[in-house]
């Protein structure tokens, strides 16, 4: 928790906070145009530039992207800062004379008028639309094109984007109203013959909803409710990017949209069958896998809790993979048979171990942990306490390996070494019994 001084006021902020956040936390307002709290700092408008004195040096730094450090002395409105800020606003007003937000800023800062020949652009290239599309919605339907004075926001090759969901998040964040969503993209989608999925359906918030209003969202009850319920643009709430991002608990990663078995296996629903692999926790325990020895041929039946395959590990150690649910073995991953190290190298992707057609999927899957970031407000999916489970497992591991010198685990509880290589046969058996059930 670094403490710094902002215009003489003491600000204590969490680790990783920016100077801008620190300043705002003590009520010092710094104007911004390209900053959005939900987006990665972009640092393009330079309006939030402040003077930072540190280690005997005074530097001008954009506060939105500058990490706050202990002992910094920040001046948010020194003469040098204000002079530059005025000039920047003057430049922007000259670029976009029809943007009200700039005139408000100009009036507030006392910017001289009429010194520069006005252009007629509405877009100030703050990049928020590009960022929201990439970082929140995850489709990157728009980006920057051109360089320097010809730079602009555009779809790839300036042809209509096939990726655009018409969610309208870009239009929502635009400070100058340069993106007219309703009239451009929606018109195009209207003209398409494809099923007219609702934009909230495209965002993954409402399954399979078709638009009954010819994309005139202002006539739609759902649309009217959405922003009210979300309190912001629904894209920020639904955020497909964040939902798909792996969840990290104590340094162990959990992929989204998968079920987790208490014996450290993951289960993912494919079209007809379930795919199974080991999770991040398990792969860190076993280290390198030397050989995968399946006990069942494809087509054979397996019951929940029966040994599905043996993993041969370094130092003559082994570990068993137990079937998380009963069913018919559909296939064994040929890749891991050829390169067994894939099991621990790419546990969630190429290193899956087998596929099973379950006999009683519904009931058995319900007993597993499900990792799906919930969409608050809408309560489409209820999150199971997967976090608590991983926390408990890490504690168990720490307890088992406590008091060994040198420390086998990092402070967070991640193995430092290849455990099968250093643990005695008995210890390893305890480990596998505790975490893999056999």
């Amino acid at each position, binding site marked *: 928790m670094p403490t710094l001084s902002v215009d003489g006021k003491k600000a204590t902020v969490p680790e990783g906070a920016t100077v801008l956040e620190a300043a705002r936390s003590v009520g010092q307002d710094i104007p911004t145009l390209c900053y959005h709290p939900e987006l990665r700092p972009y640092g393009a408008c*330079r309006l939030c530039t402040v003077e930072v004195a540190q280690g005997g040096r005074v530097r001008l730094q954009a506060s939105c992207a500058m990490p706050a450090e202990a002992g910094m002395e920040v001046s948010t409105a020194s003469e040098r800062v204000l002079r530059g800020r005025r000039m920047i606003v003057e430049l922007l007003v000259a670029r976009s004379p029809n943007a009200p937000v700039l005139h408000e800023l100009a009036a507030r800062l006392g910017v001289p008028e009429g010194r520069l020949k006005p252009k007629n652009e509405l877009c100030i290239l703050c990049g928020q639309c590009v960022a929201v599309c990439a970082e929140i919605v995850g489709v990157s339907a728009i980006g920057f094109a051109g360089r*320097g004075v010809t730079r602009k926001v555009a779809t790839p090759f300036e042809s209509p984007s096939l990726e655009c969901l018409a969610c309208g998040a870009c239009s929502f964040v635009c400070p100058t109203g340069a993106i007219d969503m309703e009239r451009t993209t929606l018109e195009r989608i209207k003209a398409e013959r494809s099923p007219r999925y609702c934009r909230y359906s495209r965002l993954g918030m409402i399954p399979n909803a078709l638009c009954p209003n010819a994309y005139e969202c202002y006539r739609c009850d759902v649309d009217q409710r959405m922003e009210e319920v979300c309190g912001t643009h629904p894209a920020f709430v639904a955020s497909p990017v964040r939902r798909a991002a792996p969840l990290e608990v104590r340094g162990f990663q959990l992929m989204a949209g998968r079920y987790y078995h208490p014996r450290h296996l993951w289960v993912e629903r494919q079209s007809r069958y379930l795919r199974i692999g080991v999770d991040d926790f398990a792969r860190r325990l076993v280290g390198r896998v030397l050989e995968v020895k399946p006990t069942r041929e494809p087509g054979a039946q397996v019951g929940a809790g029966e040994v599905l395959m043996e993993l041969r590990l370094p130092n003559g150690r082994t570990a068993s993979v137990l079937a998380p649910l009963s069913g018919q073995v559909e296939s064994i991953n040929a890749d891991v048979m050829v390169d067994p190290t894939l099991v621990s190298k790419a546990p969630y992707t190429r290193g899956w171990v087998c596929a099973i057609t379950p006999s009683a999927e519904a009931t058995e899957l319900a007993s597993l942990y499900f990792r799906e970031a919930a969409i608050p407000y809408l309560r489409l999916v209820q999150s199971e306490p997967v976090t608590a489970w991983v926390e408990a497992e890490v504690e168990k591991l720490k307890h088992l390996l406590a008091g060994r010198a040198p420390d086998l685990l990092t402070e967070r509880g991640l193995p430092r070494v290849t455990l099968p290589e250093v643990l005695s046969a008995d210890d390893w058996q305890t480990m596998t019994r505790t975490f893999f059930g056999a």
Partner: protein
Amino acid sequence: MRIVDHTQLEELAREGTRSLCPDHTRITVGTASCGSATGGREALAAVREEVATAGLAVDLRETGCIGYCQVEPVLEVLRPGEPRVLFHHADAHRARLIVRALAEGRMPTELALCWIPRNGERPEWALPRYDEVPFYSKQLKIVLRNSGVIDPDSLPEYAARGGYHALWRALTEMTPEEVADEVEKAGLRGRGGAGVPTGRKWRLCRDAPGDEKFVVCNADEGDPGAYMDRAVLEGDPHSVLEGMAIGAYSMGSSQGYIYVRDEYPLAIQKLERAIADARTAGLLGRSVFGSAFSFDVHLARGGGAFVCGEETSLLQSIEGKMGEPNQRPPFPAQRGLWGKPTNVNNVETWANVPEIVSRGSAWYAGIGTPSSKGTKVFSLVGKVQNTGLVEVPMGITLREIVFDIGGGILGGKKFKAVQTGGPSGGCIPDRFLDLPVDYEELNRTGSIMGSGGMIVMDEGTCMVDVARYFLDFLREESCGKCVPCREGIERMLEILERICNGEGREEDLPLLEELATTTKDFSLCGLGGTAPNPVLTTLQYFRDEYDAHIREHRCPAAVCKALVHYSIDYALCDDCGACIKLCPSGAIVGEAKRPTEFIDEKCIKCGACLEVCKPAAIRVQ
């Protein structure tokens, strides 16, 4: 053959010495980009043909740039027992003459520039020694030590000049920590422009947590008129590879990238060859010199954007993204290529490293000024007698570079300014000519060291026009990400164009100054941060020229077309009629060959008449 011990390295070096000093005549032709452009390739072909005709036993080799661009193509002859002899302007015709003379057993010293001593021999020729030639007299070659001497495609020749011995020394005698210490003690600073102490930069990357690290060589030399890095890459590519390998060993990296602009096809070709040779010899790749250290280098070719010379943009470009800068911190040493700790150094910086390691930090720190050590390569161009690449010790004065090495101003004109540091450097007036060249002193004048461009301007240069020219370049090259650089440069250019057109207003200058200060202080990266330098320095040192443009509607150097008027001084005219024939707009009317009238409204001020008029009867005001 993979080299795994010192005797093998010595054997490689001996092979190189045999090829550098063979027991018959060796002829070397400079065929780097500069040599090729002036006919080096044709000279090479001519030599080959003549040698075959005469049946001479000659070892014919190609080499890189020896620096003296003014006298290209350069050819070198080495006969056993004699010093090396350097021939200037050795185009195909003169090359033939040289070979014919050699065939007669005679050294054609009348065509030669100088001789270069080898073993202390002193020939009887009426020819200056290498260091008696003014252009070379004050130079000290560290970075360019091999350029123009060895065949860049020959690994043995590089080894013969001490190459890869530094890497051997680092790997076998020094810890990574000691290597970083040595570079820090040497006082080497980044040659790309900013002048950050290299050792400190390495340490930052060394200490950054991360299992994977990268070292990057910035070879995206984009300054107009600057070609130091090209010369090194074309003439001595192994020195960069060796420097990078030493840096990688010190920082715990195993992967390197060279980001080289695609406009340097020959440099790319030489680098590819050098990398392949070094890999075959086990000097790059898995287990260098058979040790536990592995390091490999990849080439990344840049698309030519000026901003990609800025390190964060460069890394973006290597990653395949749009070349745009990111705010620092985090510095590349903390979060660089693909989020891993990365060290970026310029070509010239890397080329210094092997020499520092093999000759020791004390030797290196003994050269230069208290704050800036070693040498710096400048590309000396503009209105100067001798243009070329000059490598001089830090602390040399501008006067020595421009007048002693450069031979003074062309055509006996007066010196006006020298612009250092590329398009975003500043223009330094004559009162600072005795300034010792180092990072701090140049900054004090408002200019920068930059990557080493040095453009000399004479009295016929309009400083307002110069500022306009460079801002035009920078406007084209600004990536447009941040407001001050994108909008600020455009507006400054708008004002400068207005002034050059004679439409300048009194209130333009304070506004120009305000724009320049904001762009300098508030821009995201170094491009915007230095872009206003041409404006600020010309405003500071040549304000009278701005005033003349604005108040008197006059361009003192008679450059700005809207402000100059041509006329004919009939008293001087010798009635040759050349101007009448040449004038593209029919502004000069005459009877037969005698001009009788000058129609001002028709004149487009192209200057063609001015150039063609022998008795200088064309007046420009």
